[in-house]
């Protein structure tokens, strides 16, 4: 045998192992989670009935909570979109010293436990500048912030906005700055280039950010409980209703309100999938 023969690769046909175990593994791992999601929703819907639904919806407290949830979530979403668009744009377009630190700060509301956010807000509004700001707010609007509806909005905003910022930053990252550069050469100021080119290009991201912010606000509970309280017909939003109904042992009503929240979340998802995809692909 020559040295060339001894180093020659095996000339036998190359056999590849079956792909079945790989696909079975993928299917099992994905399936377990998907099954849990669907089973959870099914269990909820099996637990309630049309009668319980009707009784729950007839309650003035629950109707107030639904109304307050819809209003506060919408206000939070609008506020979040303004802030998230500005912050997302800055983080995507500009390089500056301390950018990575700012990036980490923006993640704080996402990683902090919700209760801690509520507590921190409460402590802030019990400090000198916080009291001054609240007094100013009362003087201007006639409403208090802590333990009042503006507090509900602020508590929702602190968390929801962080998710909107992440989405808007990713959106602007995907839009080439080149389009804005061209707009600048065509006669635009930075502001005109932003409003006429970048923002319309970001419409899909805006929709997704709005949805995320709205859905996060709808589910927010911990910060609201600590910062705005859980007073019936005052600062009671839908998650608060679930908590209050549970605490008085009315699990059926709690489940009915939960189902409403699930339906609202699913409706939002469907709208985003249909509208978002259509407007993007055109």
């Amino acid at each position, binding site marked *: 045998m020559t040295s060339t023969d001894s180093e020659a690769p095996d000339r036998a046909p190359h056999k590849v192992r079956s792909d079945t175990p790989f696909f079975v593994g993928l299917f099992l791992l994905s399936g377990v989670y998907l099954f849990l999601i669907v089973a959870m929703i099914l269990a909820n819907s099996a637990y309630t009935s049309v009668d319980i639904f009707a009784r729950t919806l007839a309650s003035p407290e629950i109707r107030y909570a639904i109304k307050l949830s819809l209003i506060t979530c919408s206000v939070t979403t609008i506020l979040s979109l303004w802030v998230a668009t500005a912050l997302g744009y800055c983080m995507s377009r500009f390089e500056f010293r301390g950018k990575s630190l700012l990036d980490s700060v923006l993640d704080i509301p996402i990683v902090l436990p919700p209760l801690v956010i509520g507590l921190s807000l409460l402590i802030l509004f019990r400090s000198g500048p916080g009291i001054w700001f609240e007094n100013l707010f009362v003087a201007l609007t006639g409403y208090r912030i802590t333990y009042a509806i503006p507090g509900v909005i602020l508590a929702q905003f602190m968390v929801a906005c962080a998710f909107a910022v992440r989405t808007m930053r990713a959106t602007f990252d995907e839009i080439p700055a080149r389009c804005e*550069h*061209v707009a*600048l*050469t*065509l006669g635009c100021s930075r502001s005109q280039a932003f409003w*006429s080119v970048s923002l319309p290009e970001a*419409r899909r991201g805006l929709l997704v950010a709005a949805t995320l912010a709205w859905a996060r606000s709808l589910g927010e509970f911990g910060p609201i409980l600590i910062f705005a309280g859980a007073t019936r017909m005052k600062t009671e939003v839908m998650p608060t209703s679930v908590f209050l109904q549970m605490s008085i042992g009315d699990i059926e009503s709690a489940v009915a309100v939960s189902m409403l929240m699930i339906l609202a979340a699913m409706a939002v998802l469907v709208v985003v999938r249909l509208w978002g995809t259509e407007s993007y692909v*055109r």
Partner: protein
Amino acid sequence: MIALQDVSVQAGAFRLNRISLHIPTGEYGILMGKTGCGKTTLLEAICGLKRVVSGTITLGDRDVTRLKPAERGIGFVPQDKALFSTMTVYEHLAFALRIRNWDDHALDTRVCELAELLGISALLTRRPYGLSGGESQRVALGRALSAHPHVLCLDEPLSALDEDTRQEICDLLATIQTQLGVTVLHITHDPHEATRLAQHIFRLEEGVIRSSTLDSRDTTAPQQLRN
């Protein structure tokens, strides 16, 4: 006229030092050089999109070195064309005119005139999605030309086009320059494009510009290329 006098440009860690070039009014300059040598950076500095550390950039009879991109009177076509996905072809051609508050009638006349020159009249209601490479390039050119710029900056406008389309756009560029009398700076890697269009050729090599002026354009070059 496009004139750069000892221009130094800083773009992140990359820097171009003391670059000078001159293209007389209404003439066609081609800038060539290896990938990464700074051609696009230089073009963007002329457009006002990159910071000029020192030196002067003169467009026409104006020193534009410190002017904003919007005030330079240039048309810019980037390599990726950067069409606006939310706008129709009509809106692309009307964009610079709307910014300048043209009245609707004058704007419509200008858009139709440009669309005819560029052969895109049938596409005015379309959006960029689904346009061919050649059509997109015509739209990008129309958008850049609509407000009557004195200077046109083109960054590899013929790359990523098939041979026939490349020939068409090449002819179109020559027509535009002749008809509109615009001064052009065009970046390319392709020597055939250069000999077909250029009156002045600049090579950016190791941070230095070497220039040559051609007596006449070699209009047979594209045919030779095709054979």
